[in-house]
């Protein structure tokens, strides 16, 4: 029965390297977080599954000709998948709250300090032996602070493909952890009185304003920051399809079936970068640490900017909403609402936090464009 011997020689048991076993465990851990802890399950489930598959010996999922090889090279190497996800997210996003109160854009800007400060921090980390981040690596890591999955994956695929797996996992994990990371920072930087501030109701926004908004964003992006137009442009296309009212069937497909299909393959493809040699490094630890720092700084700067605006406006702005400027839509806005309710049970901040929340998406896409223009290429 030579067959049995041949078969034994091709079993996983006979071919495993211990690093693959660890990475498969990491994959199952991600599945656990996605399913039991509800950590951004739409992406962490396929990522976790992809991590398991890519580390199976003999099967060759990520070798040339394997399923994950195609998913990665067709979808991520080209940048196509994150851009299509961004189009779908654009088709899901309602900019009404932001148009009603455009000053909220400043909070979306302030929270991006988390990105650029972390970039500086990543370079500083090179002082510790074992770390050796280039400026491109540091930029890709820093974008975790943008709290926006497709932006992070797009930038990482451009600037530091080897770190893509760790960066994506960190970005989605911290986005899922927003309810744990943000509240202490928000409370530390605000007084109870500030947290109690009730904001006045937003004015209604007309359909026409909502329709012109994405065109305007596209317009100034192509004038001032064309490097950001892939991300911003596809986002605006999705939003225009949503708001123009004449292509509803395209808009619905973009925010449902299309984004679902792409999400499955994007997740699997990201997971395929979680191989032992890329992930089981000291750099991954650095990325996880820097990601947490980035989220913290972004939250803090958002809150501080909101505090400043609150002062200048004579107390009309609740500084908590600054925390939503990191994006992490809509989790961060809900956290703002929850912390606000703790201070004042009749204070519903959700709609007010949606403004900075969607501003943060634009903010990090702009930051990504700046990094591409100055570091990429």
């Amino acid at each position: 029965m030579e067959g049995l011997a041949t078969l034994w020689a091709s079993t996983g048991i006979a071919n495993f390297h211990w690093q693959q076993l660890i990475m498969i465990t990491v994959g199952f851990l991600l599945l656990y977080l996605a399913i039991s802890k509800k950590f951004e399950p739409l992406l962490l489930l396929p990522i976790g599954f992809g991590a398991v598959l890519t580390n199976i010996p003999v099967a060759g999922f990520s070798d040339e000709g394997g399923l994950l090889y195609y998913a990665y090279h067709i979808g991520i190497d080209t940048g196509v998948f994150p851009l299509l996800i961004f189009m779908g997210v654009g088709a899901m996003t309602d900019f009404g709250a932001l148009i009603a109160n455009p000053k909220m854009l400043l909070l979306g800007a302030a929270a991006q300090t988390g990105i650029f400060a972390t970039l500086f921090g990543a370079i500083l980390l090179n002082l510790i032996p074992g770390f050796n981040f280039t400026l491109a690596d540091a930029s890709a890591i820093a974008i975790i602070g943008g709290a926006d999955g497709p932006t992070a994956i797009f930038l990482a695929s451009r600037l530091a493909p080897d770190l893509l797996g760790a960066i994506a996992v960190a970005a989605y994990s911290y986005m899922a952890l927003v309810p744990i990371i943000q509240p202490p920072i928000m409370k530390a930087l605000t007084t109870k009185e500030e947290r109690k501030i009730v904001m006045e109701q937003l004015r209604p926004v007309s359909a026409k304003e909502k329709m012109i908004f994405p065109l305007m964003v596209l317009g100034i992006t192509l004038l001032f920051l064309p490097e950001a137009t892939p991300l911003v442009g596809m986002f605006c296309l999705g939003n225009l399809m949503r708001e123009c009212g004449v292509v509803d069937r395209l808009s619905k497909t973009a925010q449902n079936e299309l984004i679902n299909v792409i999400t499955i393959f994007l997740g699997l493809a990201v997971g395929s970068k979680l191989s032992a040699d890329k992930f089981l490094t000291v750099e991954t630890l650095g990325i996880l640490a820097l990601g947490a720092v980035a989220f913290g700084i972004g939250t803090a700067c958002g809150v501080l900017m909101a505090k400043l605006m609150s002062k200048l406006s004579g107390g009309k702005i609740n500084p908590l909403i600054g925390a939503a400027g990191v994006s992490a839509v809509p989790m961060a806005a809900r956290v703002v609402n929850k912390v606000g309710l703790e201070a004042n049970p009749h204070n519903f901040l959700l709609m007010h936090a949606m403004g900075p929340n969607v501003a943060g998406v634009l903010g990090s896409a702009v930051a990504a464009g700046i990094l591409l223009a100055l570091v990429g290429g």
Partner: protein
Amino acid sequence: MENNIGPVLLEAANLLLVGMVVVFAFLGILIFLVKLMSSLVGGDSPAPSATNSNQAARRPAPAKQDDVKVKAAISAAIHQYRQDNK
């Protein structure tokens, strides 16, 4: 290693500065433009009733016009079906 990090650290500091300036400038321009746009298209604090009638007038129309092929196909099918079952 540590003495090599100087220039790249400087570059990172420069990026931090330039990046934040540009992010604020970009979104600041957008604030200005949104306000301008809202005042131009009459969306600035409209009387609620006006907005309502406005929306009532605008929204259904596109919905009606959208995707005429499907609608026409359906109505043709219904018409055909009624004829078949007369």
